[in-house]
């Protein structure tokens, strides 16, 4: 069963009760956070590099039409065929059409978030073509009939033992706890798939406008095989993958591996500029690039949302996020989980279908700190929250009020009134002091349940895990009036 973004809170609660997932997430945080820290230390000016990347991305996005056309023109000169897709359905249709025309029965695929996003596999399977995922993690997920739970390590939620059981069940190996044996099993089976494949489908990490080049990074070698062995190579790329110059790779090839896996470079980079020149050369006869919008161009409408398109899919924000570390990727109900998922998913599938995601953050800012392209994810989350409550993301005065969640909206109106001036504020506090007599014991509020919790749901939610402080006998302002305001009073010793 695939989870949806709409039920994030329930998904999260289920995830929190899964001890296996917790072990895996702790392993992820311990490993990747440390590896990243070590890897960025090997760059002299990491901050300067991030800044450069951010400026390059911002400049590109502000003139995306121009750079896209330049990219297409140069790649076409080198023999690449282009296909434009407004949405996922159109993109799937294009790929399917290309496969059918070539009578392709065997298709290999390398890891690509863009194809996950549009559920390409399902679309092809519905027409009787089963593309074989060749990235080890993706293959595991495909065998298990699941979805990835991490951008970089899709099967992070599964243990070695679970994977071994899966292999015993699906490909008939002997039970093992040896990762090398599991890996070799995948190698041997997938080699046959590579050998027979007529078409290879990949994603794209970067498209260089200046040269019409596509660049794909990996560690396993399956992308080199996917793009190098079959007669036809189809690359599916979002329109935001463009960088202007070949030299810009110097920036992004330093940032991406270090942020993603903590490597100085991944094992392989395939830098592909067009099809082969002579029939006897190596490589596919034809290369097709599917340029996909699927909700991306909409994000250009505001500088805050535009940042979403700078993402290079490194996964660093997932690893750093305290919320992701608690609930894992599946809870987000989207191929893009974690902080970046919480901002991209609502924009891609529509805010009404992912209303909880922008709130699924403590706004701690750890994501912003690690982001190699300096996306201000908290700013984006706040922007989307405003969009959800008021439709005022563009600015407080720009839009009429939308339909709000009634109780929350009422609460905020009451708070707005109570805090609007000293008189109403004082009255509110007096009421709180009176009411808290019901629940305060020894100067604190313990677990609140029953009637009071129903009356004040936030207090119930808070005190399920934590005691709450009581409203003070004498507020600061009362103490100020009672003598604290006298500047000659020099030493006040706090109660230790």
């Amino acid at each position: 069963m695939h989870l949806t973004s709409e039920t994030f809170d329930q998904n999260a609660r289920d995830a929190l009760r899964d001890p296996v997932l917790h072990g895996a997430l702790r392993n992820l945080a311990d490993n990747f956070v440390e590896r990243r820290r070590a890897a960025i230390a090997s760059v002299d000016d990491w901050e300067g590099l991030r800044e450069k990347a951010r400026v390059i991305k911002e400049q590109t996005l502000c003139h995306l039409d121009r750079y896209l056309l330049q990219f297409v023109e140069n790649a076409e000169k080198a023999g690449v065929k282009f296909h434009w897709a407004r949405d996922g359905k159109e993109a799937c249709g294009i790929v399917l059409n290309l496969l059918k025309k070539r009578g392709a029965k065997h298709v290999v695929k390398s890891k690509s978030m863009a194809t996950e996003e549009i559920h390409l596999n399902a679309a092809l399977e519905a027409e009787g073509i089963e593309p074989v995922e060749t990235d080890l993690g993706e293959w595991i997920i495909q065998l298990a009939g699941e979805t990835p739970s991490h951008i970089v390590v899709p099967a992070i939620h599964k243990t070695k033992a679970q994977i071994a059981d899966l292999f015993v069940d699906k490909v008939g190996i002997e039970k093992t706890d040896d990762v090398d044996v599991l890996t070799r099993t995948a190698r041997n089976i997938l080699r046959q798939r590579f050998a027979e494949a007529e078409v290879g489908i990949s994603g794209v990490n970067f498209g260089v406008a200046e040269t019409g080049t596509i660049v794909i990074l990996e560690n396993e070698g399956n992308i080199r095989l996917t793009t190098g062995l079959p007669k036809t190579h189809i690359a599916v790329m979002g329109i935001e993958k463009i960088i202007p110059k070949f030299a810009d790779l110097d920036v992004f090839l330093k940032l991406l591996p270090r942020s993603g896996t903590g490597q100085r470079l991944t094992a392989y980079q395939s830098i592909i500029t067009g099809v082969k020149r002579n029939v006897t050369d190596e490589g596919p006869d034809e290369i097709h690039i599917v340029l996909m919008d699927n909700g991306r161009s909409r994000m250009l409408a505001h500088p805050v949302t535009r940042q979403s398109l700078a993402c290079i899919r490194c996964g660093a924000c997932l690893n750093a996020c305290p919320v992701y570390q608690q609930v894992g990727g599946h809870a987000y109900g989207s191929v893009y989980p974690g902080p970046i998922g919480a901002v991209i998913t609502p924009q891609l599938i529509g805010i009404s279908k992912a209303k909880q995601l922008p709130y699924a953050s403590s706004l701690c800012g750890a994501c912003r700190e690690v982001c190699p392209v300096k996306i201000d994810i908290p700013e984006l989350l706040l922007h989307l929250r405003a969009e959800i409550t008021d439709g005022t993301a563009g600015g407080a005065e720009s839009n009429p009020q939308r339909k709000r969640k009634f109780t929350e909206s009422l609460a905020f109106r009451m708070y707005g009134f109570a805090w609007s001036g000293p008189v109403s504020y004082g009255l509110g506090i007096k009421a709180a002091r009176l009411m808290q007599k019901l629940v305060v014991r020894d100067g604190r509020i313990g677990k609140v349940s029953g009637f009071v919790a129903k009356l004040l749901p936030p207090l119930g939610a808070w005190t399920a895990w934590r005691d709450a402080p009581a409203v003070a006998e004498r507020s600061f302002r009362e103490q100020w009036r009672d003598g604290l305001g006298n500047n000659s009073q020099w030493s006040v010793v706090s109660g230790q």
Partner: protein
Amino acid sequence: MKVSVFITCLVDQLCPNVGVSMVAVLRRVGCEVVFDERQTCCGQPAFNTGYRNEAQKFAKRFIKIFEESAAEAIVSPSGSCVAMVKHFHELFPTDEKWRERAGKIAARTHEFGSFLVNVLKVEDVGASSTGRITWHDACHGLRDLNIRDEPRRLLKNVKGVEFVEMSNADVCCGFGGTFSVKFPEISAGILDNKIESIEKADVCAVVSGDASCLMQIGGRLSRLDSKVKPMHLAEILACQNHLR
């Protein structure tokens, strides 16, 4: 220096001693302290939940009140609320005049610890206490205001106190405003990692710069009957055991 204190709602009503302590420390280092009783809230709860219209009202109110003050600096015992003041301009994306006013107020507003170290250039405020303590980096102070060394320097100068770093001091406590009650289970999961770090550090107090984090951490410590006390930076800097 004349300082106008911005006390924040949480401090005013739930832990006034933090405000009282901050006033004491500011006076001790030679500041003249004023408090405008008209002040209420910075509007952060509304802003962070997406209620920008309400947030804008709070921002305008805050700006008007503090514009009237002749104080050179506005100082607050909360990195989070100060960060909100720095966000004010975002509430007026197309209103040049208000944006300018917001910017001017933001420039005058400082978090307490950062104000001592960076503006007053004071690292030893003459405090003394006892025991082993650690520091929890409140996220907004750390990542919005870039306050990392300042509180540590201040704490290391408290006589009689042993300062230790806990593991993951810079990781969120799980509070996150309405997040803590919208997703209480996740918030509590994050919090328990923090509690684990605190207990491992074997301290008698965990010190931080934001009352909200202390409410979250302290609430859990209290529920678990821990011996560790949550303390605000202002409270420990106000301690002068040697004078007792």
